[in-house]
């Protein structure tokens, strides 16, 4: 089958029962997407499927044929960070960093659907992603800052 990950096409011979998480991590070596609970409870494996957040641990690869998958590796890199990634860095919205890719992808989906969320909308939108280090206050601040900077950008053309 054909899997489009971060804009690149891959021919993947995944069995029908294989999860997208396994395909990404073990076949494509995209290890930014994390395996934590394997049952849709923690959000660490969040990716974008056609721009909307999905738990890769509960998504079958077979169901992603010809759909666009975006992982943390495809969001932004080095000097070309996505505003959400930049805001996480600036606001220290992470500690151990293990949940961070999932948090950022969840934020990307949230801001895609709601470019100017209120604080309580951010909290609700991010409440499916657990962070055991407790970076939550700064995660909320970072997502709000990312929304502002993205809106500022589009307002300035």
């Amino acid at each position, binding site marked *: 089958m054909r899997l489009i990950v971060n804009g690149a096409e891959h021919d993947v011979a995944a069995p029908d029962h294989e999860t997208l998480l*396994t395909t990404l*991590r*073990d076949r494509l*070596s*995209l*290890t*930014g*997407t*994390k*395996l*934590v*609970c*394997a*049952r849709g*409870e*923690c959000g*660490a494996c969040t990716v974008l499927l056609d721009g909307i957040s999905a738990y890769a641990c509960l998504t079958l690869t077979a169901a992603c044929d010809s759909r666009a998958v975006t*992982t*943390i*590796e495809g*969001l*932004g*890199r*080095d000097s070309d*960070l996505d505003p959400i*990634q930049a805001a*996480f*860095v*600036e606001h*220290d919205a*992470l*500690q*151990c*960093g*293990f*949940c*961070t*890719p999932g948090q*950022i992808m969840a934020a990307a989906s949230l801001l895609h659907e709601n470019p100017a969320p209120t604080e309580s909308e951010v*909290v*609700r939108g*991010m*409440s*499916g*992603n*657990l*962070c*055991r*280090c*407790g*970076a*939550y*206050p*700064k*995660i*909320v601040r970072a997502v709000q800052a990312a929304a502002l900077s993205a809106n500022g950008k589009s307002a300035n053309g």
Partner: protein
Amino acid sequence: MAKRFVTTKVEVEGREETKTVELPSRNPSPWQDDAELHVVGQRVQRMDALEKVTGAARYTADVQLAGMLHAALLRAPAARGRVTALDLSPALAIPGVRGAIAFDDVPDVKLDGVRLFDRTIHYANQPVAAVCADSLEIAERAVRAIVCTIEPEPPVVSAESALAPDAARVRPHGNTHRSSPRILSRGDVDEGFREAEVTIEREYRTPVALHTALEPHGAVADWSAGSVTVWESTQGVFNTRADLAEAFGLPLTAVRVISHYMGGGFGAKNGASFAAYTAVALSKRLGRRVRCLFDREGEQTDAGNRSATIQRVRIGARRDGTLTAISLDATIALGIGGWLAGPARIYHELYRCPNVRSAETFVFTNTAPMSSFRAPGSVEGAFGLECAMDALARELGMDPLELRRRNYATHDQDKRRPYSGKHLDECYRLGAERFGWDTGRRRKRDDTSPVRRGVGMASLTWGAGGGPPAYATVRINQDGTIDVLTGTQDLGTGARTVMAQIAAETLGANVDDVRTVLGDTERLPFTPNSWGSITTASVGPAVRVAAEEARDSLFEAAAGMLDADPDDLESRDSEIHVKHSDRCLRFSEVCEKLGDVMIIGQGSRGPNPDKTALSAFGAQFAEVEVNVETGNVRVLRIVAAHDSGRIVNPTLAESQLEGGIIQGLGYALYEERMLDGRSGLPLNPTMHDYKVPTVADVPQIDAFFVGTADVVANHTGAKGLAEPPIIGVAPAIANAVADALGGATDVTEIPLTPWRVQASIERAR
């Protein structure tokens, strides 16, 4: 000539040890509180943030080696019994399976009192065998094919049942640790209670809490030509190396342990893990690279936990609030093993009281072994002591904060040592001010609404002075950039950044030119585990000494180039200036002229000051809303004032405070490992059923530092700060709940689930 090797006292996780230390090559004068520092104290950006936000950071769980096999564990579905038959052959017959091991195939090593793959089952989910296959999926399928027969016996699940006269023996010598009861006493408590005009007596209960690190325990092992390289999710690469070398009969030179990034430890990852022993044993046996990661259920049921406690507390005081006696009789459930992290210590330390006696009974049960968990013992103890202090304040009709101030301890009373620095009084003052304590206390109660507000507070202390041995090397590269090499770990605390800041400050370098290399036993000098909040105060001074040595060499080299005396040079932002002149050279220019000369400084951590107590302090305040109809508790805000000496990086330090407070919130309100009382089997081994706080549970948090550089503790002036913030949260919240309920009832048990709160309300009726 003065002795080069001396001994000194070092405290880790509440345990004091005597360590030998080689005196450092130099002993810098402390950075005084008013020292003009340019990098230390600044909000420098976390140095590995870019790797973490792009998914580039490679954790142990992400290590993928060519030809790597995957291991899965068979775990016992019973809490007590004996393996009477174990047939691995059906697993080995499955295509893609490369090997399987059990009891006879691993070194005779005990982990928390249990032999690897023991045939005697001591707790539910104890590993019985491991299978290794081309993929994790095949390995997990093969594990299910193993034929394992266990003859079950009724397990001893709770501490109370273990202490019953007719209880079955959990360990051969009995159900309590041989030191039990561990008695610690000063003064004469009986006399103290006779002197008391008011005495309160309470029983407090705390639950088993689970670390729930997002990255599970896990390791990748690559055994090759008699040596082994191990990636391990660990707080201590050197401890792990020592454990593995001993188990497999290897010299330390044949074991390399790497931990570049790790996804949370919180105290549960302090040496070679079960996963590491398994991965190494399989790699050795098969000559292949092997990864073994705990799955989530394994992590939640067999990766350490905070002990449950029962604390029977008596406090006696005079009418004016002066404490005359404190007594504690505690039962601590260790599970099948672990170490003795009892709640007693904080009872002896936090308040001035001449007569204190504690008795701790450590109990073995057929449950998974405990391990250190962020401020082990003191989190549990603070709940009992600080709730009891509030009960006493209510009895006396006194402001709880005033009661605490009246019993301010000016020195470590058990050991009769002065504190190197203590600013708890400032924590009280500034914390109360920012919280609005007096206003909160005076607020008029609205007893007509089902939602009642309350305020509460708690104070805390924790030994966080660090100590030797710890080493660092500072290398100035040919382009003027700087490597700080030190074998410590960064669990997410920010150690990478903090060490780079200390080096940059000392060298007068731009911090962006500095990188910290850590987490590798082969290439880096020794440092201790990242535990006990000791890293900054232990490794930081070693980094400073190494950087000073390097700076002196650099200045000597530059002096010739600048036609100046080395003593007339100073540096800032990676530029060396001749004082009172405009002559200067960039580090890069000096290094270019030096060619391939490499400037290297070595540093080590010196001894701690003699007869001095090194502690961190804090005061935490909570405001809650309690719905008296539903029993639901909502924490509205937390104000936390902490004294941890000099703060090297306020942003990272505040992140630690917020994180500790949020973990404390979970402990106070939600977190509780549940076992079936009869079978001992886990009831909530998932992240859905074991409730850690989500972003939606987080109150407004105002966490900050008071106090000043602790120049007596060490020459950087810094003390530890990662563990203290979790300590006072649960009692502050419980005291606020009791306040909201009008003080008619005590809150004596956590987590404060709605049914427990309702039970408290019922008792008051």
